[in-house]
């Protein structure tokens, strides 16, 4: 990680020094500027057409009572946004999403970190261990969700098979209130992804630092908490931010791991989270205006939460190199 960061800096520095070094050539020549915009044009056009414009369109829709079909739509101002806060189903789905995020994100980062620390030691068959633990994270989401449905099937599933060998009664897993545990299991099955990221971070920590501390009499625990964790903190922060963003917009795993696959409305209450409700509002209830307002609220929530995480972490995250955006 830090090597990647220094690389950013190394490469950015000559770029900044370029006009000086090339001396006689005027600062970024017109020819080069034109070439630059020719090269970045696909991304700029794509960003505007496929991100900025859809977001703007959703915002416009959110101010109307559009049902997606009838050409007559009325401007309703912020009525949809007001309704969000009076709709108990929306509020409860948002709360469930929050709880889900608060549980699964720290848990999978912690599990991934623990595994990474274990597999960062000199061990036999270390590479094989890493590969096999990482493997579930590359299984396509649909495959993973279907696999968990099979394991937790009431009759043919392994979970009830294990219970029955202990003489316990079979449990209907894929409905309330148990469906949420299946979902947690599904999320945790992919914690090898977090492990790989933490592992890459651990490998970037110079061994000498830890060894020097231990020569000075630091215990393993001390060097871990005082050296390893601070040096790893940017990687952990990165995982927290991307994890929270991904978790708040969870959709496919919820629909696929419970629900009858025929629509958002069939997802059990425990897994009926925000994006499920958004899809139900769009495509089952045809309330395009209201659903668009819900999308914008999620967008705002994600933005605010990300900013809060960055702000709160600013004092605790330790950068060996200034992050590029700040310079």
């Amino acid at each position: 990680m830090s090597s990647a960061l220094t690389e950013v800096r190394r490469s950015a520095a000559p770029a900044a020094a370029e006009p000086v070094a090339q001396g006689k050539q005027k600062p970024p020549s017109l020819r080069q500027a034109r070439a630059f915009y020719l090269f970045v044009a696909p991304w700029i056009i794509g960003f505007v057409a496929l991100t900025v414009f859809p977001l703007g369109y959703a915002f416009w829709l959110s101010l109307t009572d559009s049902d997606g079909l009838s050409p007559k739509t009325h401007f309703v101002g912020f009525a949809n946004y007001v309704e969000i806060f009076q709709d108990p189903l929306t509020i409860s789905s948002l709360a469930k999403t929050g709880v889900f995020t608060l549980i699964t994100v720290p848990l999978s980062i912690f599990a991934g970190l623990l595994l990474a620390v274990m597999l960062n030691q000199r061990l036999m068959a270390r590479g094989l261990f890493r590969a096999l633990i990482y493997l579930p994270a590359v299984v396509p989401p649909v495959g993973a969700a279907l696999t968990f449905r099979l394991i937790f099937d009431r009759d043919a599933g392994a979970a009830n098979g294990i219970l029955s060998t202990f003489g316990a009664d079979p449990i209907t897993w894929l409905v309330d209130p148990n469906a949420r545990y299946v979902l947690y299991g599904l999320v945790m099955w992919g914690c090898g992804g977090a492990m790989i990221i933490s592992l890459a971070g651990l490998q970037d920590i110079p061994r000498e630092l830890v060894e020097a501390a231990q020569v000075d009499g630091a215990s393993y625990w001390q060097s871990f908490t005082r050296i390893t964790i601070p040096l790893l903190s940017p990687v952990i922060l990165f995982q927290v931010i991307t994890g929270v963003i991904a978790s708040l917009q969870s959709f496919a795993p919820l629909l696929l791991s419970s629900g009858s696959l025929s629509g958002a409305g069939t997802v059990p209450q425990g897994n009926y989270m925000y994006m499920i409700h958004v899809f139900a509002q769009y495509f089952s209830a045809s309330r395009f205006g209201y659903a668009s307002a819900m999308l914008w609220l999620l967008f705002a929530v994600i933005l605010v939460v990300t900013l809060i995480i960055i702000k709160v972490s600013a004092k605790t995250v330790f950068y060996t190199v200034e992050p590029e955006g700040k310079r």
Partner: protein
Amino acid sequence: MTRSYRYALYIVLLAVVLAMLSPIYWLVQTSLKSPAEMASFPPTWWPSAPRFANYSDAVSSVNFVGALQNSLTIAFITTTLTTLSSAWVGFGFARLTAPGKKQLFVILLSTMMLPGIVTLVPTYLIFAKLHMVNTYWPWVAWGLGGSAFLIFLFRQFFAGIPKEMEEAAIIDGCGYVGIFWRIFLPQSWPVIAASVILSFTGAWGDFVGPAMFLSQDSTTLAVAMATGYVNDKGLPLNNLVAAGAVMYVLPVLVLFMFMQKRFVSGFSTSGIK
């Protein structure tokens, strides 16, 4: 490391590996069970008579070949266009300067944090208005726009290539497009490999995109696997679901086994920021 610590570590790791692999075991053994064995409780731990016909049934009872073709087409469009476009844009950010470049780069990095699904639904509505739903055009458009993360990967790689090479090319009268195409792109195969793998697995695994943008009979394997195998009462035929899922998941796992390093490099460098 003391000996007992070492043993404890191996036991823990073996238990984790077992826990990680057991779902795959269960998927495979379910895919070989007969309907009668599926109905018995408690479930058997290995099919008494493996029924390989489940696999041919799984292919024939849904439009498997058609869905496979759609999956491959979309994966091909996404992989080639995203990789080329991201390399192209990455070259611009790595080797050229212009006013506004710094700001654009910050925007590029922050788009990696944009919630994808929030833009997906309104994008669908727009494509529906343009009558481009149920065509491959949305994937062409997404591919041409490149991926912020892959642009970043290419930019990092191109920025490390010595300047002398392109100066020599400029003296020889080569334009920037030629420099990109003849000098930079051929050198960047490690990033191209990572990009191909990441965009292929992304497109292959995507469920929400094809579920929204394609109709049921022109959809991809991901959607067909999740919705296709039901009996006339609408209940899932779990042994066929399992057989279909094995065939759907297998290409990705094979790719992973042979290209593990690329998978990991692509995945772990995502921790850069």
